[in-house]
């Protein structure tokens, strides 16, 4: 922190409208284990700093390894910013005013991840893969990919923000393949938590819990029927609802994508039935997208993207808050010191409704219940495509047989208007989201959401 502070006092920083310095000192542990054993065990030391400056209405950004020569990095950032001055189409960036935060954001891990032996982490991963394959003869292989990040991140700005953040993140991606009657199938699972320690695997999700969940997904795929093609009424479970909230609607409400997206011009207008409220929150206990301060030193707040069916606020950084004449929401986030902060979601979800699952099901004669996702993608016009796992047919108001190899698509702005029921139960998914080459920890969720025919296209492959 002192090195960064000294950078702000350097000759290179003088006369620059705004200087933002960030540094990371983070150690990552990575383990890949299959049922036969641990295949990868690695350690990464990530240590470096970056400078972002605002000069003549243009951003300049420079990155350097280690913590020395911060002044040189500021000079480099200023040099590239100056190179844009006076050019054609050159921007005129201004920043919304904020009250700069001075804070030490502390991790609250009971068993800090850096105090757990790497050998114990590796044993956990192997135990999980072995458990999946060893407890069901149809499972042919399993892979557990564990990552944790421990250390510190620092931020200082010329406006007086000073933030020290304890990094403690754990992430486990597991996948398994199986074969029944010669037909292969595979599924995946993710566990991701910010600010928590190893106690998560000891108390919240031990390997049996994750393993059983993963097996259930593969079993569903193995025994599933092909889906019918076309549009049908359906219920999206919390994880799929979360994907819709994040990919198809959340990105449209990030201010940098909003202006030329499907929501442009619709603020204050009805975009969904009154029962629908969708938010992006900086903190939900146990979720992955939690932050105490954003990467521009802004104290983050909850954003109500859709308020009782009416399009509300956009997520902003300081630059876009100024353009829109709004108070910043604290959504500026950077993957690491190597990247400039951009507008990112944190924890995005639909608020729950009041219907029991059987009430949601009863009006559907034929349709689908989509339980979980295999990944997805959305675009500025709200077109989305999501690979589905854990899908079941709905027959005469009841959950029926499983469905395999399913993908769904739609136009979210159209789908939203066709929501006609929200469940009481609530769930979420945590993962990494990619935007402009940066990967970011986020969570998304919601209740069961029922949609009428015409909202979702089912296009099972194979």
């Amino acid at each position: 922190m002192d090195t960064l502070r000294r950078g702000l006092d350097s000759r290179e920083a003088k006369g620059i409208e705004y200087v933002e310095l960030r540094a990371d000192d983070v150690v990552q542990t990575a383990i890949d284990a299959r049922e036969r054993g641990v295949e990868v065990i690695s350690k990464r030391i990530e240590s470096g700093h970056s400078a972002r400056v605002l000069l003549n209405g243009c951003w300049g950004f420079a990155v350097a390894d280690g913590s020395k020569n911060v002044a040189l990095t500021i000079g480099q950032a200023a040099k590239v910013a100056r190179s844009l001055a006076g050019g054609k189409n050159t921007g005129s960036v201004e920043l919304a005013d904020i009250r700069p935060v001075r804070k030490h954001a502390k991790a609250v891990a009971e068993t800090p991840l850096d105090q757990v032996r790497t050998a114990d982490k590796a044993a956990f991963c192997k135990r999980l893969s072995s458990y999946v394959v060893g407890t069901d003869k149809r499972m042919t292989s399993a892979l557990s990919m564990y990552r944790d990040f421990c250390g510190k991140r620092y931020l200082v700005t010329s406006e007086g923000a000073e933030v020290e953040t304890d990094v403690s993140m754990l992430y486990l991606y597991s996948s398994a393949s199986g074969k029944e009657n010669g037909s292969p199938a595979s599924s995946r699972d993710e566990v991701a938590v910010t600010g928590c320690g190893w106690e998560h695997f000891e108390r919240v999700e031990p390997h049996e819990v994750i393993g059983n969940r993963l097996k259930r997904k593969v079993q569903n795929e193995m025994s599933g029927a092909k889906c019918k093609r076309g549009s049908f009424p359906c219920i999206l479970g919390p994880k799929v609802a979360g994907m819709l909230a994040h990919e198809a609607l959340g990105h449209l409400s990030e201010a940098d994508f909003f202006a030329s997206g499907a929501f442009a011009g619709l603020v204050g207008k009805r975009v969904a039935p009154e029962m629908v409220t969708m938010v992006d929150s900086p903190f939900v206990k146990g979720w992955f997208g939690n932050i105490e301060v954003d990467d521009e030193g802004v104290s983050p707040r909850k954003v109500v993207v859709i308020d009782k069916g009416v399009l509300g606020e956009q997520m902003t950084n300081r630059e876009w808050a100024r353009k829109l004449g709004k108070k910043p929401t604290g959504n500026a986030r950077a993957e690491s010191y190597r990247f400039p902060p951009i507008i990112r979601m944190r924890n995005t979800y639909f608020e729950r409704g009041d219907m029991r699952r059987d009430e949601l099901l009863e009006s559907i004669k034929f349709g689908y219940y989509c339980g979980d996702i295999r990944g997805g993608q959305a675009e500025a016009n709200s077109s989305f495509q999501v690979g589905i796992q854990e899908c079941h047919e709905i027959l005469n108001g009841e959950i029926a047989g499983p469905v395999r190899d399913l993908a769904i698509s739609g136009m979210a702005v159209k789908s939203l208007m066709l929501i006609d029921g929200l469940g009481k139960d609530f769930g979420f998914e945590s993962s990494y989201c990619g935007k402009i080459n940066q990967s970011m920890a986020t969570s998304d969720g919601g209740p069961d959401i029922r949609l009428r025919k015409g909202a979702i296209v089912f296009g099972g492959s194979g």
Partner: protein
Amino acid sequence: MMAREQDLEEAVSSALEEALGAGRKLECAEVEAYASCGRMQRITAEQSSITAASSLSENVLFVRVVEDGRLGIAFSSSFDARRVRQCVEDARDLAKIAEKDSQWPGFAPNPGAYPRIQGLFNKSVESLSADDQRGMLELMIDGATRTAKGIIVNIAGVEVSRKATGVANLNGLDALSKDTLVNAYCWTVRGKGKSVTPDCTNVRASRRPDIDFEKIGETSALIALHSSTLKKPRTEECSVVFSPMAVGFSDMGLLSTLMARGLSGERIFRKNSFLQEKVGERIASKKLTLVDDPLGPGLSGSRPFDDEGCPSRRTELVSDGVLKGFLWDNYFGSISGAGSTGNAIRDRSTGSVSVSPTNLQVKPGRGDMEKIISGIDHGYFVWGCQGVHTSNFETGNFSFVASPGLLIEKGELVGGVRGAMLSGNIIELLANIDIIGSEVQDFGGSLMPTMSFRDVRITTG
């Protein structure tokens, strides 16, 4: 100050030397180091306005240590001698707690020599000024906005980079190379609110600053222009033309996603590829010949050695529709008996090595994109495959949305379609290749033409 390329090579060489020296001193049985040192300058535009410039320096050092068949990996973003030694010690310590791999074949042997590939390093890239680069981006934005009223350049950028890469191990393998790269990307949309088009992205990569920047913007805008007249797609089976982007650009491309995974020797060894046990069989129309060729002079996917230091080579994968072979790294190539094809790639999040194509190429056929489209009475033109990365790589089943997708009627692009989902199995699709285009586009890792297919299954709402 930006380091010159000589400094980059020296930095890589000394990091490798330091790592092997530390390994010898610690009496490690086997040590391998991979180092890369790069400098990139990026200028970006948002909402048609140039707003940011970045100067990025990146040092990466990966160290793998093996003791008695036990592998430990450590990596760092610093070439500082103390940090390099720390890396070697960490890798050795992790090797002690790793499990023994009884099949461990050792790191790659010293090949003696590497292929010489012309045109990987271009001096004129080094002398590009920030003004030159800004001018390139302005050309791209002008090309887009001049094409039609209402075009918005959502995001565009020009990246210019220089990099030195090296690999060394205690077997005497010692590889060093340098290259330059210019990347350009332009993402436009047209319309507003509910009538806005999908993201219309165009990209190009080159070792030289010879990209037609104006054309990149113009083509991106033309797709947005066509896409802004809405047409209704039908649930049907019909002809579909894939743009070079839709065939082979990264995770947006059908072949760069499905075939890249299916052809991986690692997947073959683990028995989870849809191409399992199909060597010698016809897996596609006779029209398809697919190679991985990292040796092409000046191509942005070319390189003299892979990320383990194995020499690059041309690998025939599909010849006249018949599957000929797969891609291998040193580990899976050794234990399977196939041998390395020089296709190791370093996983930047773990430091481990896996298998990937270097420069996947479909052999060009006849006819340019316009001519192929003009020969179709009714069908669709796919510019990007939204969600193709969620395909099933064990079965080859795919399902994605044509986005942007355009309707073809009587040989003309008549408007954009929303939500047209294409699904099927890649082997069945490849049997139905109609025409392969004559012009290929270099995406920096693949070189792809336009392709058209018959009887493709379309589903709509």
